[in-house]
């Protein structure tokens, strides 16, 4: 019996989910007021791994801030590198060599694939299926090996520099990436066979967590969440940066607005990223990977600057206020899942608790990036 309908008999109780709970992907706490099995109010509580990156931006020189960019979203750190590089290149007017931009795009897209792979595996694990995570981890491991060979790190990348990248890619990386793409492409249809067609998954995702395009707009939701609600918005196409305009790819958009649509957007994006990487490898020009004459101590002119990129989870943008010195006066980081999860409270009202967790997983939160 749904007790929501009989409001005079209502008796609510509070339930804490997290902060240490596998379904919250880290240390996110959700304070839920339950009405039987239904959610009356679910309030996400953040800040368990708040590190005040914005203050660090004010205390460190522009170059010293680089390592922070790998520690926001530990799953798609290269996109964050890309944003910071782009921001300062915009402020300083640095022109990046074309080869460096291609390398940036290749590594960023590899990073996006591995982020979506882990997102896929972890999401299915939230819903009770363990095996797909092993498949996803297997593929992800190969990407990590490839990225390790050029960037030197496996997770917290600090690979880009103002004016380029610090290490050129070699033939081993290129052949390895091509071999990976060849192996990875047939995996996605296999995942669909293994997971997507599963009736349990379909029942748990289809129609669950409906998000209209309007609520996404009001809350500033971006990325797969917005594209699963039928809005064709991707910074790579709508606000082109780097060499994305020269590369062939489509933006997957689903109009169902439910958790399944968001899941499908991510699956399709992996294939599109493969296309981008392949095209970029084919077009990879020769030349230097660092711009000449990038000053060691940067002093961007006074004023404020804004730059946005498409990270794996949506629009990551930075706004910095420079006072003409070698540190930032104010560094503002806009993380995509912060906005995406902020709509959880409104959208989860009246939802079954088990559905709400499936819905939260489809928003794909990464906690260090929300807390900053």
């Amino acid at each position, binding site marked *: 019996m749904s007790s929501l309908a009989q409001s005079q008999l209502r008796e609510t109780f509070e339930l804490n989910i997290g902060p240490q709970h596998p379904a919250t992907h880290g240390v996110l706490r959700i304070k839920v007021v339950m009405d039987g099995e239904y959610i009356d109010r679910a309030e996400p509580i953040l800040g368990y791994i708040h590190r005040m990156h914005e203050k660090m931006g004010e205390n460190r020189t522009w170059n010293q801030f680089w390592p922070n960019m790998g520690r926001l979203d530990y799953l798609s750190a290269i996109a964050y590198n890309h944003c910071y590089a782009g921001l300062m290149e915009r402020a300083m007017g640095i022109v990046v060599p074309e080869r460096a931009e291609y390398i940036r795009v290749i590594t960023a897209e590899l990073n996006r694939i591995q982020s979506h792979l882990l997102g896929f595996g972890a999401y299915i694990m939230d819903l009770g299926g363990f095996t797909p995570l092993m498949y996803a981890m297997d593929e992800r491991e190969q990407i990590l090996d490839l990225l390790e060979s050029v960037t030197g790190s496996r997770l917290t990348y600090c690979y880009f520099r103002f004016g380029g990248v610090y290490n050129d890619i070699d033939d081993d990386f290129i052949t390895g990436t091509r071999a990976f793409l060849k192996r990875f492409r047939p995996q996605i249809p296999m995942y669909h066979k293994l997971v997507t067609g599963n009736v349990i998954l379909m029942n748990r995702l289809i129609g669950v967590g409906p998000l209209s395009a309007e609520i996404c707009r009001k809350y*500033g939701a971006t990325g797969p969440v917005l594209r699963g609600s039928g809005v064709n918005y991707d910074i790579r196409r709508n606000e082109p940066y780097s060499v994305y305009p020269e590369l062939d790819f489509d933006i997957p958009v689903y109009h169902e607005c439910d958790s399944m649509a968001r899941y499908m957007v991510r699956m399709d994006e992996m294939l599109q990223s493969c296309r981008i990487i392949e095209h970029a490898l084919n077009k990879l020009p020769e030349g230097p990977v660092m711009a000449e004459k990038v000053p060691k101590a940067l002093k961007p002119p006074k004023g404020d600057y804004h730059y*946005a990129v498409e990270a794996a989870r949506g629009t990551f943008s930075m*706004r910095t206020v420079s006072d003409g010195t070698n540190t930032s006066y104010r560094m503002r980081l806009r993380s995509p899942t912060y906005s995406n999860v902020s709509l959880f409270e409104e959208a989860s009202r009246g939802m079954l608790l088990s559905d709400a967790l499936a819905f939260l997983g489809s928003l794909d939160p990464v906690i260090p990036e929300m807390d900053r």
Partner: protein
Amino acid sequence: MDRAKIKRELEELAAEGLPAEQPQEEAPVEVQAEGEGEDKAKAKKEEDVPRKNGLIETDYATRGAHLDVQINPDQVVRAAEILDSEGMTLELVTGVDWIKEGQFEVIYDYSYAGGQLFRVVVRARVDRNNPDIPTVCHVYGGANWHERETWELLGINFVGHPQLEHFLLPEDADFYPLRKDFKP
């Protein structure tokens, strides 16, 4: 989304606020709209003089925004309504501590998700000793968390905000870490 309409309405809004703030100076807004506001500021002895209210068309390639408008704090809700009616998204709320001028600046970044690339920056300055600015929560639900964070880290009071409680910092934090006079 109508770029010309947004520009016109924001320009009118900024012009409305101008005499209210500085009744003795009746600088025509049109002059500043040409981007001469910066030249004027340079002409003054102090370079750090706060910018006057008005609308500037900025160069997207170097700044990352198309329109940059500064208005009075009590007009931010009206600005949000104008931009909301044109289908823009509130992407970010930023607070900046201008301690030398005794002011806080609140910056609202608006973007458009409907295809065309269009970014609008709305700024408002509040007194540092009395940092009250109306909330835009009821226009954009997403402003809730951003304003809450700005309140928590800078101490800017968003009047009418439904839940100004600690969010990222511990519940007993009695400091504002992003203020420039913050000593850890």
